[in-house]
């Protein structure tokens, strides 16, 4: 021990010690308050609306004679933005022009369908966050989970019920192994989980692409990289009847949310994981194995992502392709961020992102607004979620500079 790390000081009754502050600052970026999340969404939607407006053709036409009749431009802007968002709402929540009640609520069930893998993978990312790990690897974990689930789904032929259970277990196992590798390597060698998970994402993607070239994984009579369809017994039953795509995978997501909430707040394992995440040194001093915590949390995070892969294979896609995970693994990170790494926060953030995805398609087809605007809004949300610490920093700086001017 050198002098530079010498005594932690006196006179710190007033303010918490510096290490506390630093740790707190860090956590606030991850957890923060619900208010901040809601604000982030609202501000992002407003900015997105502006963007829709200025890229709209009618708005541009009206802007040509802006100084003659500025009202035209403004009303065109309002029409463009509001009609786009209304279309998105119709596509994501409730379609008033539907013929039957089922048609009218169909969009919302679509939202929940899309939200299912987002929630499951998001929970995995959130759980790892809480233990202090930045799990970028949900994408790879989804893929490996989906691969195993699909393989059990199309190559094993088991009785109804048992088959589905086997598929879910296989998906969970695949994800858990892929996540567990990260935990194990990190615990053993101290390698950084961000690097490990990013690299394992590539490994998983290429592994799936290669598997799909093998005869045992290729659909009969097709040279496309697509696996045989899974057996009917391996599929999640529809939750609300055949009219909707919504399947029991969503119920699994709800169940997983409850389970993660219990794990984090009411179990000894969760207590230890949170301690490891919040202050690994104190956790270690209290006899909690930090390295074991890394392995456990990455196993669980991978398991949840694996379930997301299962939901894709057994719920909506019914076969394995290299694109089965879409970008759910990466969206899961933003979902967990927006959900402040709490189980229910992640749940609702997942539904919101599901709504963006489901509604974006309708928006594009109805108003011609490019679906990429949804991506912009999503990105802005993340930006604003991450912004508060940046904002406080900026305020502090500007305050400091005013002071120095006063002093001068």
């Amino acid at each position, binding site marked *: 021990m050198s*002098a530079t790390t010498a005594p*932690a*000081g*006196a006179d710190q009754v*007033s303010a*918490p010690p510096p290490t506390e502050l630093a740790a707190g600052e860090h956590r606030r970026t991850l957890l923060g308050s619900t208010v901040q999340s809601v604000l982030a969404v609202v501000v992002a939607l407003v900015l997105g609306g502006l963007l829709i407006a200025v890229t709209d053709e009618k708005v541009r036409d009206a802007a040509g004679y802006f100084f003659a009749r500025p009202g035209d431009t403004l009303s065109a802007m309002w029409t463009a933005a509001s009609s786009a968002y209304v279309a998105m709402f119709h596509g994501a929540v409730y379609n008033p022009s539907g013929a039957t009640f089922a048609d009218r609520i169909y969009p919302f069930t679509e939202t929940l369908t899309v939200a299912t893998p987002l929630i499951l993978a998001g929970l995995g990312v959130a759980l790892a966050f809480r233990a202090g790990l930045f799990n970028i690897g949900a994408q790879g974990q989804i893929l490996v989970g989906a691969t195993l689930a699909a393989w059990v789904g199309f190559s094993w032929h088991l009785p109804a019920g048992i088959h589905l259970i086997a598929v879910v277990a296989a998906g969970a196992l695949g994800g858990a192994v892929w996540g567990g590798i990260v935990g194990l390597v990190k615990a053993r060698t101290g390698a950084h989980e961000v690097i490990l998970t990013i690299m394992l994402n590539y490994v998983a993607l290429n592994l799936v692409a290669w598997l799909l070239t093998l005869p045992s994984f290729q659909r009969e009579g097709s040279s496309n990289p697509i696996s045989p369809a899974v057996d009917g017994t391996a599929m999640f039953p529809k939750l609300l009847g055949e009219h909707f795509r919504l399947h029991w995978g969503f119920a699994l997501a709800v169940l997983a949310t409850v389970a993660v909430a219990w794990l984090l707040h009411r179990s*000894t394992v969760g207590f230890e994981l949170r301690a490891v995440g919040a202050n690994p040194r*104190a956790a270690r*001093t209290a006899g*909690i194995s930090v390295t074991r915590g890394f392995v456990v949390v990455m196993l669980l995070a991978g398991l949840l992502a694996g379930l997301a892969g299962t939901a894709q294979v057994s719920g909506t896609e019914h076969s394995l392709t290299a694109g089965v995970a879409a970008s759910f693994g990466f969206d899961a990170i933003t979902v967990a961020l927006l959900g402040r790494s709490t189980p229910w926060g992640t749940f609702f953030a997942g539904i919101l992102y599901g709504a963006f995805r489901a509604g974006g398609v309708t928006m594009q087809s109805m108003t011609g607004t490019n679906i990429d605007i949804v991506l912009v809004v999503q990105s802005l949300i993340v930006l604003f979620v991450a912004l508060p610490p940046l904002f406080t920093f900026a305020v502090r700086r500007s305050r400091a500079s005013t002071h120095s001017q006063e002093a001068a």
Partner: protein
Amino acid sequence: MQLRLRDVTKKFGDFTANDRVDLTVEPHQIHCLLGENGAGKSTLMNVLYGLYEPTSGTVEIDGEPVAFSGPGDAMAAGIGMVHQHFMLIPVFTVAENVALGHESTRGASLDLATTRARIREISQRYGFAVDPDAVVEDLPVGVQQRVEIIKALVRDAEVLILDEPTAVLTPRETDELLAIMRQLRDGGTSIVFISHKLREVRAVSDVITVIRRGRVVGRVGPETSTDELAALMVGRDVSLTVDKTPALATGAALEVRDLTVVGDNGVVLLDGVDFDVAPGEILAVAGVQGNGQTELTRALVGLEERVTGSVRLDGHELTGLRTRDVLARGVGFVPEDRSTDGLVGSFSVAENLVLDRCHERSFAAGPSLRLGAIAQHAGSEVAEYDIRAGSVDSPVATLSGGNQQKVVIARELGRPLKLFVASQPTRGVDVGSIEFIHERIVAERDKGTAVLIVSTELDEVYALADRIAVFFHGRLMGIVGPDTPREALGRMMAGEPAESVLPAAPWDHAGDDDAAAPGTLSGGTDRGTTNPLPPTAAPPTPSEPTSPTGRTAPADRHEGNPTA
């Protein structure tokens, strides 16, 4: 330059750290700010140095109000600060450190020659003996501190703030620092000296301002007696000596043999240490910070990686066990730094009170936490230890230092123990809590628990110890009686073995075989390397503090309580 703080108030939320403090530092003056830990001294200096903005009140230089927005402004105005934690870059040379942030350049290249010359000049004028080309990490702590002082002087500081400068120094280095301070004053620099150590304060100050709970409670001269100062500081007559009966120590609960700890960089941090602690005995480890005491405590509970030697508790080997298993064998551990190692700041008081106990049957049913039981436990501990918290669900980081420490102590003493290890048990804790914590530790001893206390505060060591062990550079300099004079301990802390400081040091009863056969040095597990027991010394029972050499300067001991 005259520096004045006029009616400065600083609040953190509801907490008033400084309450209308008025303070004038005249030129050519050593002005001491005396107060307990947590009295608000550092907050006040951070206001002065521009790190905090006062809630109300002003800082004035020569009668003109100034507003600093940061240390840069304060430095420019001629105020220099030497922090308790040095702000030096260990791998840089002295000159590079001094030049940092203040570099003179020739074109694009760094011009260190000017800085070197300035360092030599200052060094010569005040007799600092600092080589500008030495790498900082190779320098002793006392010299590093001088580098900090040079940094301030190079920037033409007229007022120098020294924040608890002696906390990391040996007694000899302290005396040297005091001499330097006098020289600086005579050379025209005014000094604000922050301390809670009465001896130093009386030795060097021209004016003493006493602060308690954020308020100025007295402004006195250095001729004021220590008991008057102590009374001012703590607001009542305080007894740092805990009422305790002599230890009834027999046998050894904890046996440490040839314990060696090697750091990550291959440096030997703890070097072949042997000692015993009897059940119902407090062994206090004294020594300047960074001489292996921290590593000793961490090694005992299995937190150090590279450990050799043996640690036995009631005959069972502890080395090689995981920390959880060590704790489960009845070891309570209070780490040195509560905020980094002892508590999870964002966790509630209740959660922190079971941080190392969440698997116990009373707090968990299988994998499930018994939240009701945890809350109930927290309620009773908070009441028993008088922990002042908004509620047991408040994050522990919102508590004051003293109350945070009580949470750690309550947790560790809250289960049946065979060994209690506490490092700096009362650092940064208010006086009332210190007394309370000391009483608890003695009560634990009286239950028959072996207790090992590490403290850099000699007053604490004297208050608690049944025997005193002194460490220097990772080696045990010897174990001596509780009445060993301060001066003798100081020499041991600076590296003199006990046998050369005291003619006979009969207090090390490491290994009962020694006690049985005092004529042999090589009995049983004893290596004879660090054991200061002379072959002829008779082993008296530790319950009789009758060391003939131990009473040469008793008046120097309890600074805070000369009546003891």
